[in-house]
């Protein structure tokens, strides 16, 4: 018999913990169809609907909390149902939104847990964590007459640290900017909880990749359960209703062109990531803000693009977007983008980026050295095509 690393209350609270498999081994061994059938039989349908729809609703609206979020046994079942729904939807944008919201909720919950509970959770996740009864000092900050000792009760093995932190690509979490000794990274509780949030986010996102046929088969099997089909359709309807609001590339640039038509691959790439609620690294965020400012995109629209990111904080984003505007930062040149590894010309084999264009004014072949140049050239080409099309249309008429 497996020994439980954590209390059952913790599992109800955090159903993504590995020990869930031990306690709920019966349901986890069931096929999704049996599990869903049993769930709808054992629990009031209204409550399941209400709670699931509330989670999806909050995620679609980019909210950072779920009203009346309950921690009970049903929470475990709903977590599993959520994962099944996500794999049936098979939509990255939906999955990212749910993962972001769900991980944020868990971050808030974990933040108020005691140090020891956090340690227990880490142990359950088989993270190589050391817990010190007496906090250890690992940094000192001296400024003027103030001397502050930075202490912690936690260290984490660098491999576990990197497995969680590396994909976050945040300067504060870079290994080189942290204290590392004997293989252990010294870490504050709040930062450890942030890593756990990342674990939860990845856990929600992890799903078995099915090919089209298998996915369709699974769908058809599950749709035989009317209650499930209704729930699925209702969420999809909500999503479609919200979709227009969440389409970040709807705005026009210039007079007749949508940004997506003329954007260089570097900008498209970042916008696509944001639209799928993927995390953007610091440099991608700066690039996006500076460029969108240069394009005179309204502030609220820029904030809206960022609203889909996993760590979105409206006030902070608004402040930073305004700050960049006031400072009049200029957008990155192609060379800078290359040095920051943000140039996507090669990845998308973009002809204009790679081959350049012919400048009539200069009477020579020129290279694109700035995303704005790319957009002007692209706009010029498109407007020419448009005029030509209209002329052809006139001729035909």
């Amino acid at each position, binding site marked *: 018999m497996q020994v439980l690393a954590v209390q059952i209350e913790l599992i109800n609270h955090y159903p993504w913990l590995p020990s869930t498999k031990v306690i709920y081994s019966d349901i986890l061994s069931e096929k999704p169809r049996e599990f869903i059938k049993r769930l709808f039989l054992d629990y009031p349908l209204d409550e399941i609907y209400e709670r699931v729809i509330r989670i999806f609703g909050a995620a679609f609206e980019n909210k950072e909390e779920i009203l009346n979020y309950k921690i009970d046994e049903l929470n475990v079942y709903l977590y599993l149902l959520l994962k099944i729904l996500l794999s049936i939807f098979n939509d990255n944008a939906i999955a990212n939104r749910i993962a972001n919201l769900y991980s944020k909720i868990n971050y808030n919950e974990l933040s108020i847990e005691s140090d020891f509970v956090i340690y227990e959770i880490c142990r359950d996740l088989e993270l190589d964590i050391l817990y010190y009864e007496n906090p250890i000092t690992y940094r000192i900050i001296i400024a003027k007459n103030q001397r502050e000792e930075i202490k912690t009760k936690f260290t984490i093995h660098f491999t576990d640290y990197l497995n969680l932190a590396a994909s976050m690509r945040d300067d504060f979490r870079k290994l080189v900017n942290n204290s590392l000794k*004997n293989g252990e990274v010294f870490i504050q509780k709040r930062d450890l909880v942030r890593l756990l949030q990342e674990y939860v986010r990845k856990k929600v996102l992890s799903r078995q990749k099915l090919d089209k046929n298998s996915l369709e088969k699974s769908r058809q099997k599950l749709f035989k359960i009317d209650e499930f089909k209704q729930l699925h359709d209702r969420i999809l309807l909500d999503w479609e209703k919200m979709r227009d609001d969440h389409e970040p590339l709807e705005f026009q640039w210039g007079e007749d062109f949508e940004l997506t038509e003329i954007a260089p691959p570097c900008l498209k790439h970042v916008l696509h990531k944001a639209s799928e609620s993927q995390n953007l690294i610091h440099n991608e965020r700066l690039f996006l803000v500076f460029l969108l400012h240069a394009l005179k995109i309204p502030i609220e629209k820029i904030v809206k693009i960022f609203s889909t990111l996993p760590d979105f904080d409206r006030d902070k984003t608004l402040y930073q977007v305004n700050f960049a505007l006031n400072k009049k930062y200029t957008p990155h040149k192609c060379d800078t983008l290359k040095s920051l590894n943000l140039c996507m010309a090669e990845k998308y084999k973009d002809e204009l980026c790679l081959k350049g264009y012919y400048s009539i004014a200069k009477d020579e072949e020129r290279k694109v050295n700035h995303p704005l140049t790319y957009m002007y050239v692209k706009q010029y080409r498109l407007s020419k095509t448009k005029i030509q099309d209209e002329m052809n249309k006139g001729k035909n008429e």
Partner: protein
Amino acid sequence: MSENAYLQRLFQRYYSEKREDIPKVNSFEKREFGFIPWNKQIMIRHLAFRELGDLREKLALEGPRHVYSSGTLYEEPDHLDMNQKGYNGCDLIIDIDVDHFFTPCKEHHDTWSCKECGLTGKGMPDKKCKKCGNNKFKNVAWVCDKCLEIAKQSIVRLAHDFLLPDFGIQESELNIAFSGHRGYHIKIENEKMRSLSSDGRREIADYLSGNNISYEILGFKSKSNNIYGLRRENIGWSQKIMDKIEDLLKGPSSDIEHLLEKLNFSKNKIESFKNSKDVFLHIITSKNTQNIWAIEGYSHNGWITFLNGIAKEIGIEIDEPVTIDIHRLIRYPGTLHGKTGFKVQELTLKELDFFTPLDEPKKNLDPIVFYGKNVNLKLKIIDNVIPTIKIKGETFGPYKEGDIIEVPNHVAVMLLSKEVATLL
């Protein structure tokens, strides 16, 4: 007989006679192997061996020019589709190659020529050709005891300053090898590290090289016209930087001058720093200090330039893509390097201390396996200039195109392998 056929036969004979010298690496059967043959410059990948004997047999039979194996473990290492190999984790590989960093002696022994316009030069080429702007060069790089010593010292620092104290890696987990040409690599066999993603490995590469440090996060900040510096008590890179600064300040002023000159500080600023050296040392070593870094002429940006310079001195110049790539193949220990004929020599950290690849006295560590003092070969030089080479205590060259020379076997093998000479 062509030079390549001659070398291939030599390699085949070596592998036949020295079968027992080809070691079995850990998880041997899970690794992918790759060979570069003598007749074409392509890597034959996706090979795997169940038994060491099979590999030894293949080497003796084919005598390939280069032999590699993966740092990665696979369920099916010989599957042709990378996605179907069944990734089982990857050892961390760190490569230090003289090719990637500046050494003063390169000006004497390395040459380059632009593939576009033919412009030639000595040392390391610029990023772009001065004449035509092209960025593709033909490099002729030579082994040199000074370069190899610098690479060796980098490996020693890498182990003693980073891998053992910071990462807590055991000496027994380090598999160090002289590459047989211009560098060394370390393969770290640690179960936990095998799970690291490329992103995680990139973080380790940054930690080892000191790239992307944020001094502000480490504690450096400007506030009310004061600059508050880093502290030695802060574990990690802050401590490394402060230890280095302390050493610098305790050393001769000429060292400070040399570093600041390298960082393009003006003469006035260099003098100013030297004059404040003792006060600065007191500030950074005293416990009861406000930790204000104030040297005339040094603004926030000036200090950042200084700190970057210090970090560069501490960091190790590794070949980053090798560390980050989780499907990379590296030279197999005990095999021969096709550009020199030298053996890929495995070493412990202790053995590394006294290892001198071009003149190694210990026979079991000597990578020059074709040593033949009294076996001379007659060759014709076909390359423009061959610099002076010091090998096994003897100096050879310089040679120029058309020279007919008679050199010992090991030197001949090297010149033929480098394709700068032909057999006569």
